[in-house]
């Protein structure tokens, strides 16, 4: 088999797979990727046992062939090549990789021993690619990275009546985003790490989706993924979203981020980076105090609600995370100094963050 492929497209494909295929494993074959060469292109596939991914790379191929190569080495070699065109040639147990004056001979692995990966065939339905990616990205921060937190390590995807919603929480804060979605979707929990890979492969237009037994298939022009879903019940998050808002303020999200960042410099790292929010008479006063001194910042805000003033403390990092996806003006809605506070964009957009204030 001989194949000619541009370095750029091959690198892109390898880049996606490189993120998934582990660089070390008790089963060394899992550190490899499988290449199927057919007229028209190469299909690269690999797995981390959570995600099976296949990526199509257009190429000129003379005869069909399949082989297994060490994923990270192959990617590293291709990245390091000069020139724009890469020539691949398989002979026996060796893959020759050539470009310009460079010539690599890479040992291939045992094709028969490589695990059978599964990929979605046909899409059952679809999402708008940009909406899906944007929504997953904006709630991702709220998901937990702790092994013990089970479903909190995932992002819940719900859908009803032409709307879909992604929700993530680590048990201390919550983020959700609603977006338009047509077709028949399921409620499921996607591991947050797998969601990161989904975000990377979906780009424009529609992304095809299929649902299997405990899995979700993702289909784009070039990439097919089969993602393992999480078992378990996501907690009833709607009950922690306050319904009784007693004070609302509005201000530029950027101005608030900058001010919180400033005062947080002196916040006490051992006290959850506490930043005090004092709201009264159209002003938001931020204050932080730690071992090395104290900081204060005052911002003008639009203010309304039944409560004339309120004082609450937050973890600065949680506030910054919550504000992250908000552009333009942010609305902060408070129900009381110990009740969860809500953050959202003034012009809507379906995003909502819920953060619990720190204990006094």
């Amino acid at each position, binding site marked *: 088999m001989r194949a000619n492929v541009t370095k750029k497209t091959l690198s892109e494909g390898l880049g996606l797979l490189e993120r998934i295929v582990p660089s070390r494993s008790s089963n060394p074959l899992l550190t490899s990727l499988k290449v199927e060469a057919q007229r028209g292109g190469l299909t690269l596939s690999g797995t981390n046992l959570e995600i099976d991914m296949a990526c199509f790379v257009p190429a000129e191929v003379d005869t069909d062939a399949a082989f297994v190569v060490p994923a990270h080495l192959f990617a590293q070699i291709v990245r390091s090549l000069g020139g724009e065109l890469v020539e691949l040639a398989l002979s026996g147990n060796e893959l020759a990789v050539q470009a310009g004056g460079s010539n690599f001979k890479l040992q291939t692995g045992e094709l028969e021993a490589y695990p059978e990966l599964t990929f979605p065939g046909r899409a059952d339905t679809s999402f708008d690619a940009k909406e899906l990616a944007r929504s997953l990205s904006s709630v991702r921060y709220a998901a937990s990275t702790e*092994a013990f937190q089970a479903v*909190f390590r995932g992002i819940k995807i719900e859908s009803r009546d032409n709307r879909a919603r992604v929700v993530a929480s680590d048990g*201390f804060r919550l983020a959700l985003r609603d977006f338009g979605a047509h077709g028949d979707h399921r409620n499921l929990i996607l591991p947050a790490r797998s969601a990161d890979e989904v975000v990377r492969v979906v780009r424009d237009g529609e992304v095809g989706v299929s649902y299997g037994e405990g899995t979700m298939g993702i289909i784009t022009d070039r990439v097919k993924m089969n993602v393992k879903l999480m078992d378990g019940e996501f*907690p009833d*998050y709607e009950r922690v979203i306050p319904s009784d808002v007693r004070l609302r303020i509005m201000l530029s999200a950027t101005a608030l981020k900058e001010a919180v960042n400033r005062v947080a410099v002196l916040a006490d790292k051992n006290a959850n980076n506490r930043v005090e929010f004092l709201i009264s008479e159209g002003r938001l006063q931020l204050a932080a105090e730690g071992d090395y001194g104290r900081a204060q910042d005052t911002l003008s805000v639009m203010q309304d609600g039944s409560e004339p003033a309120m004082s609450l403390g937050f973890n600065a990092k949680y506030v910054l995370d919550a504000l992250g996806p908000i552009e333009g003006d942010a609305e902060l809605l408070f129900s009381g100094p110990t009740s969860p506070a809500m953050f959202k964009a003034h012009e809507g957009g379906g995003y909502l963050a819920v953060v619990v204030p*720190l204990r006094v």
Partner: protein
Amino acid sequence: MRRILHCDMDCFYAAVEVRDDPRLRGRPVAVAWRGPRSVVTTASYEARRYGVRSAMPLRTALARCPHLVVIEPRMDAYREASRIVMEVFRTYTDLVEPLSLDEAFLDVTEPRFGPRSATLVARNVKREVFERTGGLTVSAGASSTKFVAKLASGMNKPDGLTVVRPEEVEALIARLPVGDFFGVGPKTARRMNELGIFTGADLRRAGEADLVTEFGEASGRHFWRIARGIDERAVDPSDDRKSVGAEETFDEDVSDFARLGVALRAVSARAAARLARHGLAGRTVTLKVKFFDFELVTRRTSLPLAVADADELFVVAGRLLTPTLLSDRPVRLLGVTVSQLEASDAPNKQPPLFGFVFP
């Protein structure tokens, strides 16, 4: 140069029993709870002559010494005696670090009064303990480090006083079996033996780099230092609790995974109750499993937040208790310990959104 005393009451529980019931004098006495799984807490010297040891299953003890007098522990009496003993220690120095009811380190580099001599302080402590407790004896060891002081106190029991001078430390350590070194448990000792390290002299010949490679950074360096008598641990009088936990020894070994789960829930609940009593929560949870053959394994995990709640403890400990860990071996004891403690109502805590953080 510091002057450190290690004071260790002789057969403490048994000695209190004999003191309070003179009919027991001269007879083999063991203090132990009654029950099929009971182990000897303390044995008198008369009982030790028959091979009865503390931590030995009571059945074995009775087999070795059929006329053993078994007495159920009276913790109140021991606590009261302990209070008096610690009081005596504290008349000589503020720097008293109790290790248990019957054992403590004293830093007597600068005693509150009298001559600056560890030997003289030890003599006075021994006399005063004997007088004020109605006849209990203590064995004392004096040296410049905790490690050697503790070794010394065990050398001339009962009622001993052993002083190891700095120039004698090297020879003492050289012939000491590695298992007697501070920080070397039975497993490490076995590993060292496999490597041809049997005594302190062997250990001293081992290179620091080799020890680090074999036993890890912290332990390797520690072994290298302790083999040279270097032990900079200060006597720490703070009675800060380092951990809170609970454990259960089963009446019969348990192999059934579901039953172990039920037991773990109960042990977690008891640990949580103790945490609550002290108003504490902790970021590290340790699961302790002792198997039928007394092999002990511990598994621990550190959490981003302090836990105190019974259900949370159970979830965390439960994820450490895996079929792989058990490998079908019958379990004799389960324990759950919480460490890296903080006050459960500490200010600036991040309250959970749902009332639980382990769904």
